[in-house]
């Protein structure tokens, strides 16, 4: 098991190296002069020369790569072309709102979706099942911004229970203030994950509920709730975990629409702003971070399988 984790961690190195090479070439292999791309249409030759000098673009490609990798390994992701602040600082400011929101979203989604899916599978082909399935179609198909504005309309404007937008850091303003502001955007984001996780839970549970050991549990006179949650759900866990994990990774890499609707200073908006402004160092950093998130989350998912299913041993 430890050997497996070690191997998997070592396997991250080549994956990330390939991503890094891709990110490096992204700017260099774009048609045209990178300095001209960076400087924009109105640049003078002197400005271009200064940029080439500053970024080392006049050196051989291989030298450039090793210089870039060297600083990358020291945690230096470069400097924003627009604001001139180090990219690490920019991301450091934006990453926490995103992580906090993602965690809250996933917790809400799992808390709602798993019982929903279990219930739907238990009452297969009853009105409960049909209601859950209809909700999931709705959750998939209604665009996030519609749900977001709908929630604002109902909970903030009509009922006046929650603020329209904004973000409060839990470490600075306290958990209560954070939840007060984060609950609506998280609910909005959670809708699609509730739909997804509920469907997956239902499908996986339906399969498990047909198994012999469920009949055994009932033959033992075990309470139905216990049959469902202790016997069935744990056996149904692996595909559900996979969906939750992938969902979480997607959330970390940024959710532009929700961040825009609720005015949250997260990673998603940072990325979009960087793309619109052609802020290459920031874009490069975002690709690297997103890839790393996926790799790490996948590793965590794979390891978590062993917790739920003792037959899985690596």
């Amino acid at each position, binding site marked *: 098991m430890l*050997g497996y984790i070690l*191997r998997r961690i070592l396997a991250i190195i080549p994956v990330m190296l390939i991503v890094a090479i891709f990110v490096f070439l992204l700017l260099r292999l774009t048609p045209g002069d990178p300095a001209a791309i960076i400087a924009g249409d109105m640049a003078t030759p002197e400005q271009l020369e200064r940029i080439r000098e500053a970024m080392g673009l006049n050196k051989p490609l291989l030298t450039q790569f090793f210089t870039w990798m060297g600083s990358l390994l020291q945690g230096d992701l470069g400097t924003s072309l627009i604001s001139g602040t180090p990219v690490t600082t920019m991301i450091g400011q934006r990453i926490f709102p995103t992580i906090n929101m993602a965690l809250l979203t996933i917790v809400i989604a799992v808390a709602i979706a798993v019982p929903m899916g279990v219930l739907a599978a238990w009452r297969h082909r009853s009105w409960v099942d049909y209601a859950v399935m209809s909700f999931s179609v709705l959750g998939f198909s209604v665009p996030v911004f519609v749900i977001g504005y709908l929630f604002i309309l109902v909970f903030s404007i009509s009922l006046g229970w929650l603020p329209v937008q904004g973000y409060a850091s839990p470490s600075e303003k306290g958990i209560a203030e954070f939840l007060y502001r984060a609950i609506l955007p998280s609910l909005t984001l959670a809708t699609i994950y509730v739909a997804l996780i509920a469907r997956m839970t239902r499908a996986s549970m339906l399969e498990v509920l047909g*198994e*012999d*050991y469920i*009949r*055994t*549990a*009932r*033959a*033992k*006179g*075990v*309470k*139905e709730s*216990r049959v469902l949650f*202790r*016997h069935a759900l*744990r*056996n149904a866990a692996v595909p559900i975990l996979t969906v939750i994990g992938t969902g979480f990774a997607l959330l970390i890499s940024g959710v532009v629409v929700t961040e825009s609707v609720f005015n949250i200073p997260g990673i998603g908006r940072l990325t979009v702003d960087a793309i619109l402004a052609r802020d290459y160092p920031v874009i490069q950093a975002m690709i690297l971070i997103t890839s790393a998130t996926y790799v790490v989350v996948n590793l965590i998912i794979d390891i978590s399988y062993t917790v*739920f*299913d*003792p*037959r899985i041993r690596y």
Partner: protein
Amino acid sequence: MLFKSRNFDDAKTVLTVNDLTVSLPPAAKAPPVLNRISLTIRQGETVCLVGESGSGKSVTSLAIMGLLPKDALFVTGGRITLSDTDLLEQSPSAMQDIRARRVAMIFQEPMTALNPVMRVGDQIEEVLESHTSLSAEERRARVIDIMEQVHLPDVERIHRSYPHQLSGGQRQRIMIAMALVLEPELLIADEPTTALDVTTQQQILSLIAELQEKHGTAVLFITHDMGVVAEIADTVYVMKSGDLVEHAPIETLLRAPKQDYTQNLLRAVPSLIPRAPRAAPGGDPVLKVESLDMIYGGGGFFVKRPGTHAAKDVTFTVARGRTLGIVGESGSGKSTVARCIMRLIAPTAGAIRLRDTDIAHLSRAQLKPHRQHLQVVFQDPFRSLNPRWTVGRSLIEGPVNYGTAPAQAMARAAELMEIVGLPRDSLDRYPHQFSGGQRQRIAIARAVMMQPDVLVADEAVSALDVSVQAQVLDLLNDLQESLGITIVFITHDLRVAAQICDDVLVMQRGVVVEQGPAAAVLANPQHEYTKSLIEAAPGRAWDFANFRELGAA
């Protein structure tokens, strides 16, 4: 003492089933699944419920447990009384309390019947948690006690184990411990030994008998195996498509069965006495296996792990038109040998000569011309045919691959359908439209389509009812005589081996312990293992087909 002949006239009645009728939903407009079934089980008695698949044995047991699948099967008449409790009148929660406390059940496949992600100790303890208010320590003591009663070794370790870490026999012992921990009045055992090896089966049967004796439990034992019935039953009830056709004390039933159905059921039980040896063949052997070795696994990234030596130095030859049986329990390596012969896997060492060509180490491409001479019939006819293909398409696929014109192959397939006893129009139908026995006929036809020299039958009749089993064995025999095919017959069932094989090879843990003519090996075994296998075969002293003791001619 051949049979049990205990008297239960004075014993208390534990279970009475009166005119029980179970039906499909009214919309299905089908005849009832159970038609006015009545049976009685007394304290300490073992009642065997026998019948072929689909006769309603398991439905009866589930109806007693109150576990009929919701929305699919309904009790539409009759009464089920446990001591003085009318089970059909109980509320769901009252029924839940009765299960495990007063009626318990064990199932066929102990691997799938146990929750794979829960420690077995916890699974037993859960029964106590659900039905008693014992403290954690008291519960644990009870669990340990019952685990000792079912003779599990190293109780402390097994208590912490997961089902996949135990052997089949140990798993079934866990199931029994779970069922008996609350000392129920009635134990229902649904084919509890069918998935086990014969020696394990014998141990489990004697364990059930021992605990029954100790606690005075009434046992309802469901099985299709007449050997097991002869071994354990006090009373036998025979079921046929939802009807109870006959019931009698065991000895009466086996000596003087009244109904035709019962007589046919008994006649179909294959005899342990090997069939008359056939004349030894002339000519060269078709298949020669020399010093075959197969090691699975091994390797490893950081640590070198030893592999599993699944077959060691296996050597045999089979001549044209003969049948070789490879007999052994699970893990004996018999299937490994079959797969090597088929070249589904490549053996680690040794030679497999098919008509003088060594195919043991040929590459995929080199193998292709030889594949058509080697065909296989698998155990499970429900899974060995592509469900989305018509039978005809499955049948002609092989010959067409080897260049036969489709029309010509289809004509041959139609002929074969008749030879295996199915209508010609079966070719346009899909596998699910056939019964298990018919599907196995189709699987055999598919293999024979290729006009193979060697047919490997891997447990090819093990999933079938005895009457169907007899028919399929006859079919194989006829095909062999008309086409001169060589058959390698892999089986765990000595009765089947005795009926079809000319020669037998007995394997244990990858090693051939004994081989020779079937008549010699099975009638006069030399090796301890072969002896123990034959001794463990249930009902071996009874000649079922002739309703008398063996040898009482």
